[in-house]
């Protein structure tokens, strides 16, 4: 069983080797003529204003949290979906309860405006 992951491991090593070789080759082959202006942060030709290390919209955190909740839901759905045929009606009703609870959660977030991007 574990043997089926051996090709994947080899592929990972191959891809990593290719990526590192590419990085090395391009840094070895390319010229290197750094100057102050060339190494400065690109801001459409204007001198950079401030730093990019600033606070960003809290919306992104909200999306990430919602993602985790629903992604875990999907993790539960996959094994259920695979054996649903043998579970029959019992499995169906059980999972509909689970989905129902999550649906209420989604509707709550919706109603609270958690899915609105512009406020």
């Amino acid at each position, binding site marked *: 069983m574990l043997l089926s992951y051996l090709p994947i491991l080899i592929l990972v090593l191959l891809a990593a080797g290719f990526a590192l070789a590419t990085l090395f080759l391009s840094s070895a082959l390319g010229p290197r003529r750094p100057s102050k202006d060339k190494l400065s942060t690109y801001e459409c030709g204007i001198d950079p204003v401030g730093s990019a290390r600033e606070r960003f919209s809290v919306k992104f955190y909200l999306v990430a949290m919602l993602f985790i909740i629903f*992604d875990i839901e*999907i993790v539960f759905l996959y094994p259920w979906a695979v054996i649903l045929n043998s579970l029959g009606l019992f499995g169906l009703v059980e999972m509909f309860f689970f989905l129902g609870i999550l649906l209420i959660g989604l509707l709550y977030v919706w109603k609270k405006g958690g899915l609105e991007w512009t406020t």
Partner: protein
Amino acid sequence: MPEPAFFVVMLAKIAVVFGLMLLSVAYLTWLERKVISDFQVRLGPMRVGPHGLLQPIADGIKLMFKEDIIPEAADRAIYVLAPTLALIPAFISFAVIPFGDRVRLFGQSIDMVISDVNVGLLYLFGVASLGVYGIVLGGWASNNKYALLGGLRSAAQMISYELSMGLSVVGVLMLSESLSLVRIVGAQSKAWFILLQPIGFLIFLICAIAETNRAPFDLPEAETELVAGFHVEYSSMKFAMYFMAEYANMITVAALATTLFLGGWRGPFLPPVVWFLAKLYLVIFLFIWIRATLPRFRYDQLMRFGWKVLLPLALANIVITAAFVALR
């Protein structure tokens, strides 16, 4: 312990698939430019080789010899590592996709798949979603406002559409009763799943375009507002690696659509591999067609569409399919 022939076959398959993947990625850039230029009634690349056929190779050589600029403000280690993080998942996720029927060669029975992992679909989704790290870390490490915004947008977009993508295939799992992609193709001997799961296919296709950051979902690199988004500071082969990752993801996701919904390598008369490639390129052509046709979404529209349309639709699709499967 398996016999030595097993390892020879395995290494040969890996070498062929990896090589073809690199070649396809290079020529997909040519194909996209050609198809888009046809849509826009112009010729596209014509100078390097007949009909510009050597253009991808010329581009590769040119990028290889370009100066590799690392901005002063950037976080050096992460800045260098991020393109690698995007590239590796893009090239290894193809491993579980079957591209042909089992064949007998030199007395060996060979599966036309690098590895038939029994949780294949889970593996593919898991690995493919690692690609977002490369993008968000690259955007952050550049220490550039455009790159940061592009990286953040990309992360939020990819995780939002990953949900609907994950949900859209649950119907397929119910019908095939397996996560192994080889078995899923096997379960489509009677009818392709696009016929039984048309809504699932539609959701999957839309999410696939969003996951690969392609138009009309190309907000992470919206030229008109973010210049080039997360890879604005990248040059030389590091830039090329992001590009390769994007095109490799496009191939993988098209191959996945083929495998899950279009019957994989199944088809009459022609050899299975030919059928697989034909369907794969049909899906890719569809992606390019959509890019040539549709304008870009606005960010709030994108989020609203993902959370308020696709997610409930995917859930409804699951409920209906489940009722049919369980009460059959």
